[in-house]
């Protein structure tokens, strides 16, 4: 991108954010979370349910106050804002929800106009903006429809039109596609991607589905038990998931690793990051070194057009042969980690 400076511009910065819900059962929803989201990013925040994702996204527009730490939006601590400043900031942060949260007793037209009214947009511009928004989301013919007459995907498009109508800098998506089926999800994600690239709107996506992150996010943070266990570019997460929780999110199929091999052989998890996938590594190992490994599980995905994958192989019982195999993978540039005693929670060793 030409404007590298703008690219580096930080839009959200979370500094040691902790959120505690007081009550009979005190819950620490966010535990010392620090995070930086850059302008123009499509940033994913993924975690299992109860990880604190929804609380986290609600601290970004101060629907939820933080207990400790600070949330900075364009360098301003949200806590320091008075009511009217906060409302202004919120008008620059659109939000869409899993349940759409549209006014069901109002038409699509009125739903969007209500947002414009709240943002004090002059009435004379309302119709023009509504038409423009409906064109962007592809619902020109539904202007006077009520939400009940729309499908789930269409409702979410209306919600996106409403969020976008006040010209926000960011759109927060709270499980926005979780209630939709896969092909509708893909359409909504495409739309968000287009909005990101055409209007330079930063998009923050809260989800429990890795497929959503794969489909559109540049960067991702993995949240577990209110803590960020890892964050960085999406590709890195696939190539080198550092935590058990990430591995489970990335490769949910391989959760039950210890069911693969009952003979107690050592296993290796191999990760392909797109450069070697075309290379018949397992066959070459057998042909060149005379060592055979058994494939216990294989799984590939295409992320941003690049093939990623992981494979779990059982090493030969012979210690020397096993060593040869490990050395071979290392030479071939494949990331490999040993899964000792078939327990994948042990720390990774880089082959």
């Amino acid at each position, binding site marked *: 991108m030409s404007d590298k400076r703008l690219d580096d511009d930080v839009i959200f910065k979370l500094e040691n954010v902790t959120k505690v819900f007081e009550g009979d059962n005190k819950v620490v929803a966010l535990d010392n979370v620090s995070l930086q989201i850059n302008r123009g990013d499509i940033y994913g925040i993924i975690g299992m349910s109860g990880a604190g994702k929804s609380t986290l996204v609600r601290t970004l527009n101060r629907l939820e106050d933080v207990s400790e730490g600070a949330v900075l939006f364009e360098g301003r601590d949200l806590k320091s804002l008075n009511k009217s400043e906060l409302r202004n900031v919120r008008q620059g942060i659109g939000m869409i929800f899993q349940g759409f949260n549209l*006014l069901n007793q*109002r038409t699509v037209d009125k739903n969007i106009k209500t947002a414009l009214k*709240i943002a004090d947009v002059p009435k004379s511009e309302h119709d023009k903006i509504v038409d423009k928004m409906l064109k962007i989301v592809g619902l020109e013919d539904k202007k006077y429809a009520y939400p*009940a007459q729309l499908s789930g995907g269409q409702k979410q498009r209306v919600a996106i039109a409403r969020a976008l109508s006040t010209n926000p800098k960011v759109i927060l998506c709270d499980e926005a596609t979780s209630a939709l089926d896969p092909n509708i999800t893909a359409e909504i994600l495409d739309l968000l991607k287009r909005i990101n690239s055409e209007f330079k709107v930063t998009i923050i996506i809260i989800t429990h589905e890795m497929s959503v992150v794969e489909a559109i996010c540049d960067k991702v943070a993995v949240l577990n038990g209110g803590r960020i266990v890892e964050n960085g570019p999406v590709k890195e997460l696939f190539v080198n998931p550092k935590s058990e929780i990430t591995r489970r999110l990335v490769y949910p199929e391989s959760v039950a690793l210890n069911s693969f091999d009952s003979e107690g052989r050592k296993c290796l998890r191999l990760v392909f990051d797109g450069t070697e996938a075309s290379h018949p590594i397992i066959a070459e190992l057998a042909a060149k070194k005379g060592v055979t490994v058994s494939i216990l599980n294989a799984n590939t995905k295409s992320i941003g057009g690049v093939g990623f994958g992981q494979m779990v192989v059982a090493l030969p019982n012979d210690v020397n042969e096993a060593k040869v195999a490990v050395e071979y993978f290392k030479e071939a540039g494949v990331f490999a980690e040993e899964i000792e005693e078939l327990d994948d929670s042990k720390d990774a060793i880089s082959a």
Partner: protein
Amino acid sequence: MAGIDWNFIWEGFLQTMEMVVVSTIFAYIVGLPLGVILSVSKKGGLAPNRVLYNILAFVVNVSRSIPFLIFLVVLIPLTRLIVGTSIGTEATIVPLTFGAIPIVARMVEASLEEVGNGIVEAALALGAKKREVVVNFILPEAFPSLLQGAAINFVTILGYSAMAGFIGGGGLGAIAYQHGFIRYKTDILMVTVIILVVIVWAGQELGLKLASRARHS
């Protein structure tokens, strides 16, 4: 049936409608904002205020549990103060209104409760003020349910208005009691009761029809 003075009945009908419609309107002028305040100030509401909520809830609960007949008698001095007399149609509007306010308030509160928290969250995320959340989001969403509640309240107030006949209020209730019941004129009793049933039925139907026409979900 020959002995029925239909002009007399018609007058009673008009008096009943006047009492019920005017009381319902007055009760909503006070009860609607009161219901909104109850809903907004309660725990988990838009602007929780425990002290305010507890005071209002207490007043509403107490006044709602007082039997309407007692209300009628207790409010006589207040009625005299406002209307100048405690007898007749206009005078009955005072206790009817006061009796209906807490009922309306609770009904409004219940209707607003039906609006999901998600709508409120969406409104706040759009940068709406609390007043705007209520006016532009919660009330429009609750509108069909509010209409339905109004139909039910109308019928309740109609029932109360019939009771007002006991203490010198006008209307069909008074005719039914004083002419039909006390003087053993069964035909008058029957006719007034039938008219009351028809009003209840019509009010209910109209309310429900309006509500379902207003409902888009």
